[in-house]
């Protein structure tokens, strides 16, 4: 059985003036998966999603969504995709039900918006004007609009930005439900947890380039620093003895605490064993698995904060 490709991007490049928004970006999204593009603000995520969602013409490269060219075949493609955009709005005074009813009228195979409102947990808010909805409600409303036409692929751009943790988790559940219905989900995010929780595969985008692409778990295993163990040792001992333990990459002492980094599976047991053998008492021992954030820092040397200057971001937005 061959996996069908929902989104196919080959060597996509786009620049705005001197700012490179996307440079030679290539990836494939399989049908039915949740694919994420992870990167800090200004990395080029929105540019990529806009090129896929028929809004922007790439300077170079080949883009296909459901086998169609988003620019040339926009009219054939738009009925088959759902889009939630980062900087979009509805009319301030349009009631929620009117918005869904309106958008349903644009499509031939639209869903019943009443059922959709219930599924989104917005049934009670049907008569509230868009301008008076909370951030989380607006975001759910946009997801609803993106689903109204029973799309084959949905594009979600930064869907939980500026939401509180509770609203964020509700949206994540929603995205998982969407996928269970067989819809391919393409999302961008700068929230590590979001990528780890939701995505089958993640492309890490930095300054317009893809620096890694794999499942979050695999990325962590391959690029991550593995496991980090830290403990307090009130009595002095030679930390170099721990460096000899199999699988240990690095040992350092920071004040009272000793930090050990390594990659072997049984690292915690081995370290504790060695300490016991050396007669060293250790307290407050903690072990942390590396996260996608570590991978990201490792690969890009950047944190997930802005990696472009404000002016560059402005140039990207305009």
């Amino acid at each position, binding site marked *: 059985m061959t996996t069908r490709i929902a989104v196919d991007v080959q060597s996509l490049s786009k620049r705005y003036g001197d700012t490179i928004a996307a440079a030679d970006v290539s990836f494939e999204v399989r049908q039915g998966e949740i694919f994420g593009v992870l990167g800090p603000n200004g990395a080029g995520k929105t540019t990529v999603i806009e090129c896929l969602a028929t809004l922007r013409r790439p300077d170079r490269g080949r883009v296909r969504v459901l086998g169609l060219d988003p620019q040339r075949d926009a009219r054939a493609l738009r009925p088959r995709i759902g*889009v939630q*955009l980062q900087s979009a709005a509805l009319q301030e005074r349009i009631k929620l039900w009117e918005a869904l*009813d309106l958008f349903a009228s644009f499509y031939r195979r639209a869903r019943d918006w009443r059922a959709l409102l219930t599924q989104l947990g917005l049934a009670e808010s049907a008569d509230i004007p868009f301008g008076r909805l909370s951030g989380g409600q607006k975001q759910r409303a946009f997801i609803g609009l993106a689903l109204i036409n029973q799309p084959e692929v949905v594009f979600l751009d930064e869907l939980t930005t500026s939401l509180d943790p509770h609203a964020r988790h509700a949206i994540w559940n929603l995205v998982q439900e969407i996928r269970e219905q067989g819809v391919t989900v393409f999302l961008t995010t700068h929230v590590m947890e979001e990528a780890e929780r939701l995505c089958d595969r993640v492309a890490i985008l930095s300054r317009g380039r893809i620096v890694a692409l794999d499942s979050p778990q695999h990325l962590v295993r391959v690029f991550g620093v593995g496991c980090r163990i830290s403990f307090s040792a009130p009595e002095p001992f030679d930390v170099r003895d721990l460096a000899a333990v199999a699988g240990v990459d690095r040992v350092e002492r920071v004040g009272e605490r000793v930090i050990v980094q390594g990659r072997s599976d049984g690292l915690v047991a081995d370290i504790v064993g060695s300490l016991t053998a050396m007669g060293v008492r250790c307290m407050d021992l903690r072990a942390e698995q590396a996260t996608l954030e570590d991978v990201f820092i490792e690969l890009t040397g950047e944190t997930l904060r802005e990696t472009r200057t404000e002016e560059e971001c402005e140039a990207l937005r305009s």
Partner: protein
Amino acid sequence: MRGIAKLTWVEAKLFCREPLAAFFTLVFPVILLLVFGSIFGNAPVPDYEGFGFVDASIPGYAALIIATSGLLSLSTAVAGYREQGVLRRLHVTPLHPGAVLLAQIVVMFAMTTIGMGLLVAIGRAIFALKCPGSVPLICVGFVFSCLCFFALGIALASAVSSVRTAQAVGMAVFYPMIFLSGAAIPRELLPDGVQRAAAVLPLTHVVTLLRALWIGEAWTAHLGVIGLLTAVAAASSAIAVRSFRWE
């Protein structure tokens, strides 16, 4: 097609929920009519070629509504939708790009027509308004003037980058225009020099045309005015088509 109809209906409802726009299109001209009508009455006077003040003012008030709809309401609505991202959201749907503008134009036209209807109804009921001209010709002139000013409004929305600029430019053009063109006050009350200078304002020609049709002059006597307004409409449409942006 169903989408365009639905969008038009929704936009009509939204217009009615926007008290300020509804006030200036529907209520304000009626207030003008009532205030000035009760001051000056509608007795025939030689200044207005045997018509009364109200008879002479109604075509001007019609021009006032047309200018309000085109230069203020339509331009800020379109520029606002672009600035807020409403156009961007609609752009990724299968809706035809022109449908958004069409819906706005249809709603503005309907509201302008209702405003005009209110004026005529109140003018007849209270001031015994006279209309010697041909009603079908007046309607044609009204539609033509609307198209001209709606094109101007969309050109304005397309040419500027923000809704604030659209509002500022719209008002900067609108206020001198309604007073100098003879829309808000009969031009006979203005000095000759001002009247001559007002010939550069498109609204002056709308007032001229609507007044001529209202009192039953032959439209063929005003081909120059019609030509000028056609040129304004064509130039505005060209600007709108060339510079319209979704975001």
